[in-house]
């Protein structure tokens, strides 16, 4: 992840394994730091979550419930048990709704992923496409908006964009639904919880159509930020002198712009772009919370925000930890992938030189 940790020189399978092992150890250590942080935050919660659950404040009954949930044990026992429960996916019940937290996550996580994955893919491809197109075609006028665009990602609030899109496309033009994930007048396909996948698997064209229509505006909103960041990074990379020299050299060899930009240059800059996408995954999840709020999207973001506001013990403990683990996982993965891309590049260049 850190630039100075990067492995230089030739790599063998051994080293790759070593790298994986080290990442894994790091991942586990960080997991414990994160879970302990959440545990500490919950410990310092001023209210008693159990008395929130029981409307009838019979002290005996509260004590009974505390005992049955094991909240009277010493802190290290509770922490260890909490971690055990998390790993075994035994996440308890929400104190407010009484539902199993795992089944709630099973509903809300696919909804968020169905929003976030297209968001990041479309955003990143859009960013890459516009910048490369501008360079490949020599349409420099395209770059001006790109610069403005990447500045926009850092200056325009995402929830405001969401509201403007609603105003424009739903209220004034009436093209898309205002919010929600599905129109339940139609029977929703069941299965994985990803409506798109389920409706394709069940060959339910109408359901697919409904889910896609609901996805358009939120995905559009969410994809703006990754598009801006990717475009910004890419543009900065392409202006580096080494790349400029490479392009001149390739042009001199008579390669077509499509081949130069679409293959050689793209490969050269893909490492940093992947890293950027990985580190932005967290920010994207943050943006997803806001997007979900604006579009009444039934996802993890609202689930956890509500959990925190309601002091819902197990939702915070396991839901928040899950999100942290996911974000970490994506960062680690993208880091590994970016290194692999870099490594391939280096070995090929090495071969080329030999």
């Amino acid at each position: 992840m850190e630039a100075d940790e990067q492995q230089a020189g030739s790599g063998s399978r051994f080293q790759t394994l070593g790298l994986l092992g080290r990442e894994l150890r790091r991942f586990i250590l960080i997991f414990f730091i994160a879970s302990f942080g959440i545990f500490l935050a919950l410990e310092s919660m001023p209210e008693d979550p159990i008395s929130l659950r029981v409307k009838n404040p019979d002290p005996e009954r509260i004590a009974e419930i505390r005992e049955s949930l094991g909240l009277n044990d010493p802190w290290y026992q509770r922490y260890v048990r909490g971690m055990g429960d998390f790993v075994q996916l035994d996440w308890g019940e929400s104190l407010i709704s009484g539902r199993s937290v795992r089944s709630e996550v099973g509903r809300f996580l696919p909804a968020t992923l169905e929003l976030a994955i297209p968001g990041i893919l479309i955003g990143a491809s859009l960013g890459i496409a516009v910048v490369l197109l501008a360079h490949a075609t020599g349409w420099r006028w395209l770059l001006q908006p790109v610069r403005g665009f990447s500045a926009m990602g850092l200056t325009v609030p995402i929830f405001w964009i969401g509201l403007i899109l609603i105003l424009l496309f739903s209220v004034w033009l009436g093209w898309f639904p205002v919010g929600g994930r599905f129109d339940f007048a139609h029977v929703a396909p069941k299965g994985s919880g990803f409506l798109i996948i389920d409706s394709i698997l069940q060959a339910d064209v109408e359901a697919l159509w409904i889910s896609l229509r609901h996805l358009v505006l939120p995905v559009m909103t969410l994809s703006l930020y990754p598009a801006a960041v990717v475009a910004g990074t890419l543009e900065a990379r392409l202006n580096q002198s080494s790349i400029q020299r490479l392009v001149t050299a390739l042009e001199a060899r008579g390669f077509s712009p499509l081949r130069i930009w679409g293959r050689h240059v793209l490969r050269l800059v893909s490492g940093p772009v992947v890293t950027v996408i990985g580190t932005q995954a967290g920010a994207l999840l943050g943006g997803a919370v806001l997007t979900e709020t604006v579009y009444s999207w039934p996802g993890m973001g609202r689930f956890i925000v509500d959990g925190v506001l309601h002091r819902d013990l197990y939702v915070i403990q396991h839901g928040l930890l899950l999100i942290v683990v996911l974000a970490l996982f994506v960062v680690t993965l993208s880091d590994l992938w970016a290194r692999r891309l870099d490594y391939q590049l280096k070995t090929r260049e090495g071969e080329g030189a030999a």
Partner: protein
Amino acid sequence: MRVALYGILFASLVFIFTGCGPKPEAAPKAFVFARGADAQKLDPADVDDGESVNTMAQVFEGLMAFRAGSLEVEPRLAESYSISADGLRYTFKLRSGVVFHDGTPLNADTARFTFDRQMDPDHPAHFPEASFQYWQNLFADIERVETVDDRTLRFHLSSPNVGLLATFAAFPSWLVSPGGFDKYGDKMAFHPVGTGPYRFIDWRPNEAVILERNPHYWREPAAGFERLVLRSIPLNTSRLSELVAGNIHGLDGIQPSELEDLAEDPRFEIHKGAGLNVGYLAFCELHERMRDPDLRKAISMAIDRENLVDLALNGYGSVAEYPAPEGMLGVPDDAGPIRYNPEAAKALVQANPQWLEKPIELATFGQPRMYFPDPQRIASLIRSDLEKIGLKVEIVNREFKSHLHISRRGEAEMVLLGWVGDTADPDNFLTTFFHSKSAVVGSALNVSFYRNPEMDALLEKGLTISDRSEREAVYGRILDLWARDLPLIPLVQGDQITVMDKRVRGYVLSPSGNHYFGPAFWKAEAADE
């Protein structure tokens, strides 16, 4: 490969953009209704929020029921009933041929399950986490239930209670299938099984509750919609946009100011009526400062309640002059004892500098209710009124659930809250607000924590008298006591507003604010028949 992927993507985008033509005019199979929040639990014994009750109202039925559009009761699952002369025995004769959605037949044994589980703390379906709060409040006088024969159920009371018959129509006494408990155990709140016109299919939390027509409904005609979807859309504006876009067919919790535009739209019908509710500001007397009658008086004179109706309810409602809605037994139809007089209030504040030591805490909440379509706006307006007389106010905003919790524990000095009547009896409001038995820290409904033995005695007396004018006098005295002590200031009475697709027929507003979709149907279907 990549090209193909982008091709598919592009094609689907084009598909989406071009395929958004006008919708066909034929009546849809499903009726979709949207409200501001999702239901909490679908167990009649364990809820208190309107969204859960409005969902259960389609699935469950009680021994008695409110006649459509009124708060008069009539037998529903009971065929007939009788009350003994001393008012201590209520006997219900059950209707025959009624079957719960899971096939369990309705008889005296399956009917008493609902009451047993609420009364008996050792009953297996008396879940430790459930509140059974309403039982304690509404049915406190019921001593035991007796099965006379297979079709007859008798309730024995410890003392007569004039309001009890109506509570057999209220949601805590809606009949739950014991088969549902056998099957789902303590998860029965997520799989409601009743006898109603609609049966439960699926519940997607934060999205929708999905119901379908009960084909074996005991009454003719069966439910009007093949499928009934109750969506939750938190933002008032989003809900309205969905309606205008034709994605939903009805909604409640509308921003009243938007009605004007909607009224001109020929596609919709606006059902509007006075609501049986009171939104109030309670002074929590657990706090030293709030025990000062002068402070309560000053605040009552400083709040411009007309203005609340104008700006927070946009004129769709009225000033609540008394803690129970106008027109109820013993509630006069006059301007009430509270006068807007900021100068006098200011003088009181200036005479009492000790009030200014620290800001007064005003607790409010986020979700729309019938009495406060936007509670935060009420809080903001009250704050600026109180700042005009020199008081300092700190608004604390919470989610409705946490807000209720804080209020019931008496943790905030001033609390914004409201009450929607379950029955048309003034006792439903006044005992809730002023009786010391509902001032238990933690589960209080009397969130002022007002305790006055004289008031308690009057409230209890009011329930035992059956003579109308005598009762009226008792409630008059109760209101006098309230005006003297001012434990709470009634602020507004919100109109209830439901907007429906014009093609929906048979829907009637209920004064209690609950939606009963059982009798509603599509107009087009009616024409076919």
